């Protein structure tokens, strides 16, 4: 008897070396539940490159290919074409990269793979920084965040730029299926991956995966922070499929201030800086609402 709709099959094994309360492992666990056993994953340098543990350990029950940082897109393109030639067209080919490997270093490779139209999945787990190498700033880090390369100190050198949202870039590029999801809503995440499976062509899914180590909050709050990111509209959930755009409206909205106060990486922010962030969040919310009404 199952009270949840989440598939019971587990393709990720326990004993991996992720931090306590890691969000990225949940992103992989849910994605594999939706993708099933006939899947090949390609992983560049990222947290997921170290989570399986040292050689010869593995934590996934499916083939996993390690690829250079900038080459996830090229790697999945090659895997797809080679599998098709061998007659294994029923396999899902998935690029599973972090936000640094997607928004910064791997963007050209991703864009190329999407443009060539290979039948692949690209899943970006977004922990808003280079968390594996010691919390450096990435293009996907939000405004106001403190990282080791944007230390606040007396000169207040926190990140001054707004978050670069790769899913929006993919939509602008005309990728047939683009979605955003987060680990606090696994049913929604799994449904989106299952919807993507119905589409032949490139698919891009961005999953917000909170990181207790890099966002400086206690590990038991991972799901709470993920949920608050959606409720505060800091991270918007949407699905763009075959030209149709659908935005998820959070049921119990919270303010950006409440979200910001839940993590120590924002603890230095004053009222004015929180207002700048809130204005950006409101502007983007309005923009996406308008996009949905068209």
């Amino acid at each position, binding site marked *: 008897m199952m*009270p*949840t709709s*989440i598939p019971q099959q587990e393709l990720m094994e326990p*004993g991996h*070396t992720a931090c306590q309360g890691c969000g990225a*492992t949940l992103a992989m666990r849910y994605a594999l539940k939706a993708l099933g056993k006939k899947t090949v994953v390609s992983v560049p340098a990222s947290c997921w490159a170290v989570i399986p543990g040292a050689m010869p350990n*593995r934590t996934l029950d499916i083939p996993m290919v390690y690829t250079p940082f900038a080459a996830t897109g090229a790697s999945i393109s090659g895997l797809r074409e080679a599998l098709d030639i061998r007659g294994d067209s029923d396999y899902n080919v998935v690029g599973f990269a972090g936000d640094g490997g997607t928004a910064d270093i791997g963007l050209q490779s991703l864009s190329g793979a999407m443009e060539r139209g290979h039948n692949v999945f690209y899943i970006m787990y977004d922990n808003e920084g280079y968390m594996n190498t010691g919390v450096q700033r990435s293009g996907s880090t939000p405004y106001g965040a403190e990282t080791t390369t944007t230390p606040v100190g007396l000169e207040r050198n926190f990140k001054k730029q707004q978050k670069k949202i790769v899913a929006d870039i993919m939509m602008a590029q005309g990728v047939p299926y683009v979605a955003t999801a987060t*680990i606090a809503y696994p049913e929604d995440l799994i449904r989106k991956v299952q919807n993507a499976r119905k589409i032949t062509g490139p698919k891009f899914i961005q999953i917000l995966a909170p990181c207790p180590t890099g966002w400086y909050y206690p*590990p038991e709050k991972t*799901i709470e922070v993920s949920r608050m990111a959606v409720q505060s509209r800091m991270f918007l959930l949407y699905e763009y499929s075959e030209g149709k755009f659908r935005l998820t409206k959070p049921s119990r909205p919270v303010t950006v201030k409440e979200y910001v106060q839940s993590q120590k990486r924002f603890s230095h922010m004053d009222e004015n800086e929180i207002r700048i962030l809130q204005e950006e969040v409101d502007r983007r919310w309005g923009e996406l609402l308008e996009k949905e009404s068209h």
Partner: protein
Amino acid sequence: MVLVPLADASSRANHTGLWRTLKPVIDYSSCIRCEICWKFCPDNAINLEDGGSASSPNQKVASFSIPVIDYNYCKGCGICANECPEKCIEMEFEEE
């Protein structure tokens, strides 16, 4: 069929339970078997097992499977205790 070379040593040999300082303990007499702890466990350290009908809080959920924590792998992050809607998972200090 093996598509690409695959290391065959499962990470199951790596008992990450040694990392734990706080240990989650489920009170089955108030657990409503919602599976939320199982759903949100980042370490796959919660298994769903049959046979918990004796401790069931009511008849309605007696046939449901119960969550059982595998302390070999639980890192003690506390997500299960934090997300439990019945607050029936207690984080206890690990004894030597």
